[in-house]
C-alpha cells in the first residue's frame, strides 16, 4: 500500500443501473474521524457538536465527509463550494455556491456500516440495518407492516423471522427515504410487492398514495447487514 495515499474509509459496494452504492466503514477510528471533521462546514461541525454520544457523532462525521468527497468528484467542485440544505421532511440536498444542484443521493448508517446511494438524477433512498435481534419485534411488525407482510412474517420463527423483518423494513424505509417524508409517512399503508417478499432481488413499484412515480426497488443486503435502495425509474410515470 502506498503510505502517502490518503486514508479512505469508503469503497464501491454495488451499482444498480446508473446508481452507485458506496459502503462506508464506521468502525471507531480516531484519525479518520479527525480527518472527516476537517472536511465539514460550520453548520455540520455545530451539528456534530450536538450529538451527545460518540458513536452517533462518529457515524455522522464519517458518512458526511465521505458524501462530500463523492459529491465533489461527481460535481467537479471544491469541498468549500459544497453545502447542504434540507427539504420539508428533512431530506438533505446538495448546493454548490449556494445553488441547488441536480444529483440524487441518500445516506444511511447502522452500527459499523454506512451506505451512500448516488444517482446522476432522480430521487433515491437507501437504508441499512444491522440485524440485531429485538425483543419488541412483534410491536414493530404491528406498527410498520400491512396484512400480507404480517402474514409472511407470522409464517416464520426465530432467525428466519428476524431476517425477513429487516429485509422488509429496509425496503420500506428506502422507499420512505426516497420520498423524503421522514417519520411522518406511516409505512404500514403500503406493502412491498409479493415478488420481492417471496425472494426476488428487485421489482418496479408504486406507492399507492403517491402513484405518479415508479420506483426501482432493490434488496442489496448481504451477510453482514440488511439493506435496500429505491430509485426513481425514468420515463415510467402513470
Amino acid at each position, binding site marked *: 500500500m502506498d503510505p502517502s495515499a490518503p486514508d479512505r474509509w469508503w469503497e464501491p459496494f454495488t451499482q444498480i443501473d446508473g446508481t452507485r452504492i458506496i459502503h462506508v466503514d464506521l468502525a471507531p477510528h480516531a484519525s479518520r474521524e479527525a480527518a472527516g471533521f476537517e472536511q465539514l462546514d460550520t453548520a455540520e461541525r455545530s451539528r456534530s457538536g450536538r450529538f451527545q454520544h460518540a458513536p452517533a457523532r462518529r457515524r455522522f462525521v464519517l458518512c458526511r465527509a465521505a458524501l462530500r468527497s463523492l459529491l465533489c468528484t461527481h460535481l467537479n467542485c471544491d469541498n468549500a463550494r459544497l453545502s447542504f440544505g434540507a427539504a420539508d421532511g428533512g431530506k438533505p440536498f446538495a448546493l454548490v455556491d449556494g445553488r441547488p444542484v441536480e444529483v440524487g443521493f441518500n445516506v444511511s448508517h447502522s452500527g459499523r456500516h454506512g451506505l451512500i446511494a448516488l444517482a446522476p438524477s432522480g430521487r433515491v433512498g437507501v437504508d441499512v440495518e444491522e440485524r440485531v435481534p429485538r425483543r419488541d419485534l412483534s410491536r*414493530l411488525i404491528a406498527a410498520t407492516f400491512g396484512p400480507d407482510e404480517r402474514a409472511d412474517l407470522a409464517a416464520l420463527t426465530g432467525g428466519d423471522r428476524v431476517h425477513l423483518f429487516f429485509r422488509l423494513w429496509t425496503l420500506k424505509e428506502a422507499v420512505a427515504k426516497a420520498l423524503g417524508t421522514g417519520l411522518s409517512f406511516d409505512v404500514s399503508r403500503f406493502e412491498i410487492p409479493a415478488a420481492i417478499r417471496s425472494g426476488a432481488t428487485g421489482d418496479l413499484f408504486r406507492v399507492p398514495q403517491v402513484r405518479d412515480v415508479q420506483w426501482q426497488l432493490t434488496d442489496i443486503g448481504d451477510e453482514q447487514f440488511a439493506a435496500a435502495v429505491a430509485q426513481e425509474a425514468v420515463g415510467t410515470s402513470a
Partner: protein
Amino acid sequence: MSSTEERIRALVDANLDIEGRTAGQPLTMDLSIVDAGVSSTDVVAFWKVVCEEFGVDISAEDFAELLTPGDLIAHLDAHAG
C-alpha cells in the same frame, strides 16, 4: 400518580438505547431523540409504547413533530385522558 415527565423518563429508560445515558438521569427536554442517536426502528417502537402506555392514538405524522421529550410531554398533557 407520577408526572408525565416521570412516566416518559421510565419509558425512555426501558425502551431507548441512548448511548451514554444512565437510567434515571433527567431527560434533556429540547434534544430530539433522533439527534441523540436513536435509530428509526427504536423511534417507531417508542412511538407505539407511548401510545399504549398513555392510551392515546398519535398518528405517525403527529409523532414526527414530537421528537423531543418537551414536545411529547406537552402533547400528552394536552391530549391524554
